[in-house]
């Protein structure tokens, strides 16, 4: 049998790979899509399971005895794509690792799904993918499955990334925003608002004497250090899921991303039906970040962080946890910023430097620079 080899598509649709920009055809089921996957995506993540290019990754069970599965997802839509101290690629890897780590999980596997705008320079796409690969490698987490869609010009803003993540939660550990108890201490792992102000400063044309950089970082090693310092996970046999062990010293961890510290504390106060009080003078903010906040009329409590966490710890363990955090490179400026109280459940109050308290509510809209 001899085959007459002929082009498949006899109408006039022409190939249009110009080598420079993303085409709709990069989006799936086409020759360009296959090229992008095989020449750029697969090498960037260098993972044997991903390289098989099946519809799904199939993985040996990663769970030890009594361990539970952690699962999370986030989309990343930052503009600009590259900013001082980071890029959308790093954010996408670190952000999902962090959402796993906040539950006490060891991050194991990530998915990466790209939505790319037609016309984006391929060089930019390749740089984003390289950043994704480098961040995953740096964190020691495997990218095992992925997806790429290309949408028409004007149908998305350059590139959006979704990462989902799977991790393993040690037996007996049950961290939850609903675990807070009066007397607990609120610890932040470092300065507030670095990421959000680095981004906003790009947009507002601010510059900095020393570059203001995003704090994007993978926090799973810091969370491991915190858990160890808090005596977690216990050596004891696994318990009923999500029932906090009696006296579990570490109540909850959260990374204060969008909405900032204010949003995370409000969510915790609501979930636990407790009050939270933080003290203005204890809130760590880097000088230039504070300068930028003052100029633009923005409160750092509401600004996003991408490499910080809030840990809520029983008072007797707060010292040990704070110490452990400060010994970790990502927690050098850790500080106790407040505590949990029984009064005013669901509300967060800031004790100002002058003494009075004011309620910190969820922000009611996007943060905009103001003149008034």
């Amino acid at each position: 049998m001899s085959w007459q080899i002929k082009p498949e598509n006899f109408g006039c649709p022409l190939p249009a790979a110009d080598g420079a920009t993303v085409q709709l055809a990069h989006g799936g089921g086409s020759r360009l899509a296959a090229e992008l996957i095989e020449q750029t995506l697969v090498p960037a993540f260098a993972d044997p399971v991903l390289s098989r290019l099946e519809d799904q990754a199939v993985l040996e069970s990663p769970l030890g005895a009594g361990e539970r599965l952690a699962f999370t997802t986030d989309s990343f839509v930052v503009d600009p794509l590259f900013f001082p101290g980071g890029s959308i690629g790093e954010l996408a890897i670190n952000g999902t690792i962090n959402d796993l780590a906040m539950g006490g999980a060891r991050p194991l596997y990530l998915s990466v799904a790209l939505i790319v705008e037609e016309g984006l320079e391929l060089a930019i796409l390749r740089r984003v993918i390289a950043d994704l690969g480098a961040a995953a490698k740096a964190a020691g987490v495997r990218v095992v499955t992925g997806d790429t869609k290309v949408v028409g010009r004007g149908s998305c803003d350059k590139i959006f990334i979704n990462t989902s993540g799977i991790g393993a939660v040690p037996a007996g550990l049950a961290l939850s925003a609903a675990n807070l108890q009066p007397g607990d201490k609120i610890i932040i792992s470092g300065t507030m608002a670095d990421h959000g102000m680095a981004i906003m400063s790009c947009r507002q044309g601010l510059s900095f004497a020393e570059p203001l950089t995003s704090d994007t970082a993978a926090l799973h090693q810091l969370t491991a250090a915190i858990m160890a310092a808090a005596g977690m996970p216990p050596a004891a046999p696994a318990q009923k899921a999500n029932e906090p062990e009696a006296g579990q010293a570490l109540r909850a961890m959260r990374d204060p991303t969008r909405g900032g510290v204010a949003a995370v504390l409000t969510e915790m106060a609501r979930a636990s039906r407790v009050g939270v009080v933080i003290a203005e003078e204890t809130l760590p903010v880097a000088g230039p970040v504070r300068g930028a906040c003052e100029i633009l009329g923005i409160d750092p409590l509401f600004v996003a962080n991408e490499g910080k966490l809030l840990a809520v710890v029983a008072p007797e363990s707060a010292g040990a946890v704070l110490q452990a955090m400060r010994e970790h490179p990502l927690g050098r400026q850790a500080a106790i910023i407040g505590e949990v109280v029984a009064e005013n459940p669901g509300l967060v109050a800031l004790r100002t430097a002058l003494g009075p308290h004011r309620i910190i509510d969820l922000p009611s809209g996007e943060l905009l620079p103001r003149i008034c």
Partner: protein
Amino acid sequence: MCLAVPGKVVEIFEENGLKMGHIDYAGAISRACLEYVPEIRLGDYTVVHAGFALSILDEEEAAKSFAAWRELQAAAAREGVDLFGRPLADADADADEQE
């Protein structure tokens, strides 16, 4: 109205025929138009609103104000009471109860 923050002039330049400057706020640098503070010099502090420098801060007046206020404070300290009339040592510990 009129959010305006004092910053230090670290650079002066011209742009589109306008006198412009870079202003430093603890390391954050913004641009401002200096047309309304023609006599400004590098190192001066200026109050900037909506991208326009509106005054040069008068360091002498600032120092005078502080001197007056510190005097008030020193007087109180000599009396050994805080602003609520209680012994100074306690003031920090129970500020909350004041409200």
